């Protein structure tokens, strides 16, 4: 199973719809400071169910909505969708392509969709749990996370291993 396309609309510094197609091998994301690279990582985390504001570098959930710049007003709604190749059946749902979509409005209300059908956050988290996504705490390494990992207490590292197994 691998990620195919990520569509970001209204999320953080992306007021315009932006679409990325990932290689099944290695995809590099480059650009100047503050251009939006880590925001893409946040968008991926978020659509896959991330709830922690600290991990997403925000204060409250609405902070992921484009807050405007000097030439555009803030918008009311953010939406991210990820399409996943499921030809090997690792996601236990009978589709060869799975599309997960998540949106949030200014009231902080999130909506979730699996292949266009509304669902709960729990349905997405359960679906991903079995594949190892979300279970391996080291699979998404954000900026500065390596220092965090090295400074973990021995009990925290044990917990990471237990979660992954």
């Amino acid at each position: 199973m691998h990620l195919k396309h990520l569509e970001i609309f209204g999320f953080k510094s992306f007021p315009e719809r932006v679409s990325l197609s990932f290689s099944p091998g290695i995809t590099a994301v480059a650009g100047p400071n503050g251009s939006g690279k880590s925001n893409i990582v946040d968008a991926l985390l978020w659509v896959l169910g991330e709830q922690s504001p600290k991990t997403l570098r925000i204060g409250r959930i609405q902070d992921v909505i484009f807050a405007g710049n000097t030439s555009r007003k803030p918008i009311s709604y953010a939406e991210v969708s990820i399409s996943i190749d499921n030809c090997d059946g690792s996601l236990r749902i009978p589709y060869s392509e799975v599309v997960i979509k998540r949106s949030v409005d200014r009231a902080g209300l999130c909506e979730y969709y699996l292949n266009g059908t509304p669902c709960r956050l729990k349905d997405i988290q359960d679906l991903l749990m079995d594949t190892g996504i979300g279970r391996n705490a080291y699979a998404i390494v954000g900026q500065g996370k390596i220092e965090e990992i090295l400074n973990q207490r021995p009990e925290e590292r044990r917990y990471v291993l237990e979660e992954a197994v």
Partner: protein
Amino acid sequence: IAHRFKESFDALRERFKSRFESLFGGGEADLLLIPEDDWVSGGIEVIARPPGRRVKYLSGLSGGERTLTGIALIFSLLDYRPSPFVVLDEVEAPLDEANAARFIRMLKGLSDRMQFIVVTHQRLTMEAADVIYGITMEEPGASVAVSLKF
């Protein structure tokens, strides 16, 4: 529970030792159960000794050595419990050219069975990728993505 944990601990330890040695081109590292033999609730301690050194405590390592040790730990867990995809955000920034090259070689070796999305400022890393996106802000505060090829 204690037995299952011992099994996974031993497996992780094996992989960490070998990942460390291949990334550092030598030296030795280990995972220790703290307190010893407490398989029920003991924690995992990391010790690392780069090639030629005698010093073993993590805090004595240089910035780049700590980063490489952290990468060895991350990838030993991925060896043991693969994730379908791995996202790395500027992890190789503290590495010098030789260490960055060994890191890239490791990524390439794993890219047939794991998908990597790598945010980077480094040319060497970009050159190892099959697909490259350039993220820019023509209009300040508004990101756009452009597909790049060398």
